[in-house]
């Protein structure tokens, strides 16, 4: 996901003034993914939201001291969000990979069984135990079930976590912190 351009940055201007512009843009970018990312089917929105959280986290990591104690809390929130969305993303990558692995095993076994059957009129189920991957299917199936269940659980955690951030006024408090810093 391409980062939204930050307008009005001044290399000779004060760090805090420039950092404020960047934080505002990155925060807006992050929050803009909701409510779309609350739909579990919106895999791309979730992935992009993770990247937006990462960008906000990194700008806060280096410029947070300009903005008082809430910036540290916001850094931890961005990190927590990034980590959780990262775990969901891992599931989204591993689910199709595991499915493809299971399908490769099945296709290889089907080809081997067909070859063993030779001129038979039908396939003898007893041949199944001779299939090259006979012992591998159970693990592949268990892994697919586990990854699907884990994805569901992590997604529920994400929705709950975002709701908690909203209740605690994450966005408004960070905007206040960057806008009302001392010494302006």
């Amino acid at each position, binding site marked *: 996901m391409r*980062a939204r351009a930050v307008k009005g*940055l*001044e*290399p*000779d*201007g*004060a*760090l*805090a*003034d*420039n950092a404020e512009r*960047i934080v505002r843009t990155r925060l807006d970018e992050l929050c803009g993914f909701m409510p779309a990312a609350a739909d579990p089917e919106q895999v791309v929105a979730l992935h992009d939201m993770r990247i937006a959280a*990462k*960008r906000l986290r*990194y*700008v806060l*990591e*280096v*410029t947070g*001291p*300009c903005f008082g104690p809430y910036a540290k809390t916001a850094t931890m929130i961005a990190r927590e969000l990034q980590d959780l969305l990262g775990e969901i993303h*891992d599931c989204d*990558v*591993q689910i199709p990979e*595991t499915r493809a*692995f299971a399908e490769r*095993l099945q296709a290889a076994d089907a080809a081997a069984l067909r070859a063993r059957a030779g001129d038979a009129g039908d396939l003898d189920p007893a041949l199944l135990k001779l299939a090259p*991957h006979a*012992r*591998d*299917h*159970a*693990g*592949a*199936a*268990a*892994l697919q079930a*586990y990854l699907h269940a884990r994805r569901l659980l992590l997604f529920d955690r994400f929705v709950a976590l975002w709701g908690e951030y909203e209740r605690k006024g994450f966005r408004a408090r960070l905007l206040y912190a960057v806008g009302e*810093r001392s*010494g302006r």
Partner: protein
Amino acid sequence: MAKARDIDVAPSEPFRQAAARIVRVRADELADSSDGVLDTRDIERVHDMRVASRRLRAVLEIFAPCFPQSEFKSVLRDVKGLADALGERRDPDVHIAALEDFSKALLPAARPGIARLVEDLRERQGRGNEAVAAALDRARGRGLHERLLALADAAAGVEPRDGQEVPA
């Protein structure tokens, strides 16, 4: 995981001065994290270097307007290339570790399938390691660390040092 060094910043300091200081620290962190990164027995090393590369990339992007643009783009491209190669190694590292844990929780009859998947991932891990080795060679050959320091100097308005010629 290696923690990023804390960097003191002053709200009123010029953006470009902060850029120079922060990029120097992050560039050194990247260089310091490269030891033993090709050892597949210790997956934390590649993780630390990947995180260092991400942090460096992030600060380059944050402070982008402070740098001479042609050199900035070239350096950023090289940092991204290194980060991508580290990701090629890291992804199978993580997946293998997770599957090994997962396998322990399974009934013994279900473990062979997971072991076979781990074998596939070991091959990917090997290819990822080759990509990291090539990316490290390329970064050294192109003087990436020196170019990062030169970029920081340029942001701070420091004149190039004698003999500071680096490939574009």
